[in-house]
């Protein structure tokens, strides 16, 4: 069976380094390619200065294509934002939102992308109205299903119903694996401890998460334990994250075309302690998924107050894990010194 599921990286994963100018676009693409992760996903407004308000020169686009070719990579997705709160105090009108999506379709096409990623809070009708244009440009618009939302949340069901009704194949989903958070991430707990949360409270929240206790109970109990400020904040993360089941992707598989391999930390044993990637990959295989899983490292914000994050090493570890789960024979490795 040809290896259907392919590996990729969202350059979002290197944000700590690119933010500080420690890595440029070529470093990002080369590093990913060396790891055998040839699918390249970007946050358009991160990787290309000027987009969308100022615009992007052709020169920058040509540089992108030359790097893609040089490292034999494949453009996968332009993750766009659609700031419908651009105007203070009033919502961006519907038609203007649709026009904005069309500009991002054009930008995705200029970059050779297959997909553009819409954020989940977008009104489904905006995407339905932009779908014919996407079809013209041979691009699919994928709504990112991201915690606290999940495939059985009414908002996502509403999107799914709108897509079926539209009859367009240019509308789909991009699930973010952070939706399947099966344990309280250790890097989260450690940061909250550094922020002054009492050890017994932090231990209680971690255990309550493991026991799947409803967030509202945890918040009350933390208050009764004398928790304030960051302790309440730590408990409130449970309003925005939960251990939903990977197999719920199966009902939606025909419209799932890309996967965000969200992770907060990869330990030395190549395990993400809070997200069940073994279960995730087996569900994707079972569903016949044949797209990319793009690493999406988001641990930097949880450790940067205490240490300089090493995004490349974290991505390397996840790619080693993914290769193993996908049954690849070779172990991803960096050619040059990290």
């Amino acid at each position, binding site marked *: 069976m040809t290896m259907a599921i392919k590996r990729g990286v969202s350059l979002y994963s290197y944000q700590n380094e690119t933010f*500080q100018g420690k890595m440029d676009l070529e470093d990002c693409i080369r590093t990913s390619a060396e790891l055998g992760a040839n699918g390249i996903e970007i946050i358009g407004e*991160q990787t290309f200065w000027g987009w969308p*308000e100022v615009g992007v020169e052709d020169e920058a686009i040509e540089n992108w294509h030359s790097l893609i070719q040089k490292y034999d990579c494949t453009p996968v997705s332009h993750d766009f934002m659609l*700031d419908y*709160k*651009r105007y203070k105090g009033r919502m961006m009108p519907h038609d203007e939102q649709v026009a904005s999506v069309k500009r991002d379709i054009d930008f995705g096409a200029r970059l050779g992308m297959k997909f553009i990623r819409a*954020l989940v809070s977008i009104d489904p009708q905006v995407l339905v109205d932009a779908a014919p244009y996407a079809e013209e440009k041979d691009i699919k618009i994928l709504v990112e299903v991201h915690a606290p939302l999940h495939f059985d949340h009414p908002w996502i069901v509403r999107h799914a119903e709108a897509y079926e009704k539209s009859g367009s194949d240019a509308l789909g989903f991009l699930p973010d694996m952070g939706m399947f958070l099966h344990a309280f991430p250790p890097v989260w707990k450690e940061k909250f401890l550094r922020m002054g949360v009492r050890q017994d409270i932090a231990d209680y929240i971690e255990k309550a998460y493991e026991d799947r206790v409803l967030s509202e109970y945890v918040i009350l109990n933390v208050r009764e334990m004398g928790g304030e400020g960051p302790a309440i904040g730590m408990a409130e993360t449970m309003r925005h994250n939960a251990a939903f089941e990977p197999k719920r992707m199966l009902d939606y598989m025909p419209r799932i075309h890309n996967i965000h391999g969200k992770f907060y930390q990869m330990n030395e044993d190549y395990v993400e302690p809070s997200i069940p990637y073994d279960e995730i990959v087996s569900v994707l295989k079972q569903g016949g998924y044949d797209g990319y899983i793009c690493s999406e490292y988001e641990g930097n914000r949880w450790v*940067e*107050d205490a240490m300089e994050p090493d995004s490349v090493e974290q991505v390397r570890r996840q790619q080693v894990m993914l290769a193993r789960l996908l049954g690849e024979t070779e172990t991803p490795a960096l050619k040059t010194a990290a």
Partner: protein
Amino acid sequence: MMDNKMIVEGSLENYEDGCAVKGVKFLGRLPYYRGLGLSMVEDIQVAIDGQQVPREDVRFQVRGKTYTLDEMETVYDDRWNFGEKATIIALKDGGFGEGTHTVEFGVRMRVSYLPFVPTTKDTKELALAA
């Protein structure tokens, strides 16, 4: 995120108009994983040695263009790019004096998909470049 990388180390200088010191300036970055259109940068808060600089005395400068915070509210053709070092100016006739200063720098962003409007802050001791 990027809280501790908002203020660029060693970037504090006097802000001069001709040869008169009119305040201080330093380089600041937007604490966010992408750039943001200027109309959505709701507030830039600066305090020097604990003294809050009034909103109307703060200037934001990128690529040769200088804006007041109120002007930014309706700027739809410019943005603060990802990791871009903007020049943040705090006006005060005669400046803030020599030596090292405690610089507090906060940015409030209207991010469409967030169910809250976050303010992120950084505080650093910066020596005034001679």
